[in-house]
């Protein structure tokens, strides 16, 4: 794998005469694959998501997902948009995340499942699961996957991402911890996964931008961003989420504070595994809804 140092980034930045310090703590986007078409990512935010308290409003959540999927696919109605993603003949696994501190909100899981059912997939061929995916018969027979999870900082991979969310498909997840999880992109080659993912949704309702302990969700280090990111390219979606996390860290700590360790796996998914685009200049970001402090 190509390696990179601070000095090499400085030289590159000097040549580009742009980007400066922002690039330095974020090597992710500096060596993206060339020549690929831009990847579309939809960011949607809604200020009313938590208007009722600490639980996301289910109706607002549904509306956000529908609008994001419409803009992502280019279809006018959610029915058309979902029909372009899932076929009635599909068997669909919705890979969620159950981490105790910050799980995928049930409102997101339920909306995704409801939309898959609306397309005409029978209920017994749709399943939402995380740690049991390897044994789950729906996932074992799946023809389509939907990948969804919240973003948070992570003690070994830098950030918990859509790319990382598939680690539960691995026979032995710890085999993917090497070099601060830089090999996570290879999960996409697993037979249960390869070529099956139809949609990625990175939940940014209350992302966690810093942590004090791997096992602990910290209210102090999370905030109501009220957003979600949707796309077909997991690298582009994760890369955009990472930019939001990094911007929040700069704002909170009042200094550049790189992720520790850096989220190498996002860059590697681009350059080593060619799964998508991590370079923001090659990502078509469509922003919908509430824009205040969106950070991207």
């Amino acid at each position, binding site marked *: 794998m190509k390696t990179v140092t601070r000095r*090499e980034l400085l030289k590159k930045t000097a040549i580009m005469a742009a980007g400066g310090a922002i690039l330095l703590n974020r090597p992710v986007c500096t060596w993206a694959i060339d020549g690929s078409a831009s990847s579309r990512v939809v960011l949607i935010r809604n200020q009313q998501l938590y208007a009722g308290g600490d639980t996301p409003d289910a109706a607002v959540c549904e509306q956000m997902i529908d609008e994001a999927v419409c803009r992502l696919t280019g279809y006018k109605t959610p029915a058309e948009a979902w029909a372009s993603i899932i076929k009635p003949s599909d068997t669909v696994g919705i890979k969620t995340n159950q981490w105790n501190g910050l799980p995928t909100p049930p409102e997101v899981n339920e909306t995704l499942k409801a939309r898959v059912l609306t397309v005409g997939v029978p209920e017994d061929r749709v399943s939402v699961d995380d740690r049991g995916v390897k044994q789950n018969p729906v996932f074992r027979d799946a023809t389509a996957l939907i990948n969804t999870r919240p973003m948070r900082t992570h003690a070994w991979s830098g950030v918990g991402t859509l790319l990382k969310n598939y*680690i539960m498909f691995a026979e032995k997840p710890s085999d993917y*911890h090497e070099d*601060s999880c830089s090999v996570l992109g290879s999960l996409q080659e697993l037979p249960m996964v390869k070529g099956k993912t139809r949609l990625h949704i990175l939940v940014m309702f209350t992302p966690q931008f810093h942590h004090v302990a791997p*096992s602990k969700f910290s209210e102090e280090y999370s905030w109501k961003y009220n957003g979600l990111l949707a796309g077909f390219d997991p690298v582009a979606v994760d890369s955009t989420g990472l930019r939001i996390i990094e911007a929040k860290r700069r704002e909170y700590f009042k200094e550049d504070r790189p992720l520790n360790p850096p989220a190498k796996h996002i860059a590697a998914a681009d350059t080593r595994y060619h799964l998508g685009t991590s370079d923001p200049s090659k990502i078509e970001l469509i922003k919908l809804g509430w824009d205040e402090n969106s950070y991207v």
Partner: protein
Amino acid sequence: MCCIWRYVFVVCSICLSGMVYSQKVEVMKHLPEQFDGYKVSEWLDYEGEALYDYINGGAELYLSYGLTGMTGCKYSGEGLPQITVEIYEMTSSANAFGVYTQSRDREEIEYGQGSQSFDDFVLFWKDRYYVIITSQKIMPESVKAIHHLASLVDRAIPKTGDKPAIVNVLPQKNLVPGGYLYFHHYIWINAYLFIADYNIINISSETDAVLAKYGDADARCYLLAVEYSDADTAKAACKQLKDKFAPESTDARSKLQLEDGTFFMTWTQEKLLYAIFNGNSSGQVEELYRLTVKN
């Protein structure tokens, strides 16, 4: 003869593991089964890589500091947020201190030999133990409870331990309070600023390293110190760093102003490699160099 040594080894191993086990049990004995509306809902006991079962990839942080085991428990109470007590036992007090430096943002000594508290967590280190007590939500009862438990665990750990000797090389002038990290896994070299995405200076479990912040946030520079097994190894690592960061420098300490206007410098002193990154001026770097050498 060989058999005798094997016998001695087995007996020693049994005794040592027994000692470690009894110490863990001793600390745990001080945790109440119930108090102030809380009751133990689950006991925790993980050793080595079994910690993956508890926190998946997050376990690597502790494993990179020589984790021997984690014990603790979860407390639940009606209408109260769940509280979790995690007592991580490391191979040395230096390693317990190292894990602590990964988490703390400021220096407090309310508990143990160094601690940090928010309303929803207390963390501290003492001897070979790194302790985290967290509550799922913040309520007045839970805030009181986590501090009560922190006091109990603190008292249950009978002695203190030494910080790693390498932290003594850090000059105190302009050192950011709580702004240094002790480690011996290359992954953590980028904790404060991005340096390299690979093991550029051969950091391993046999090397002690410390990375420290100096100066105000708007004029921040960083000092890295790594102790190797011998001077030749330190020199070889220093050459690798120089080759990547300042190959054109003619300065004996590889001092060089980089493309972003900041100053870099690296040198060795006996078994130690030093490097200064992000210096704001030649004078700042020279002063930090002078103070470090004097140490």
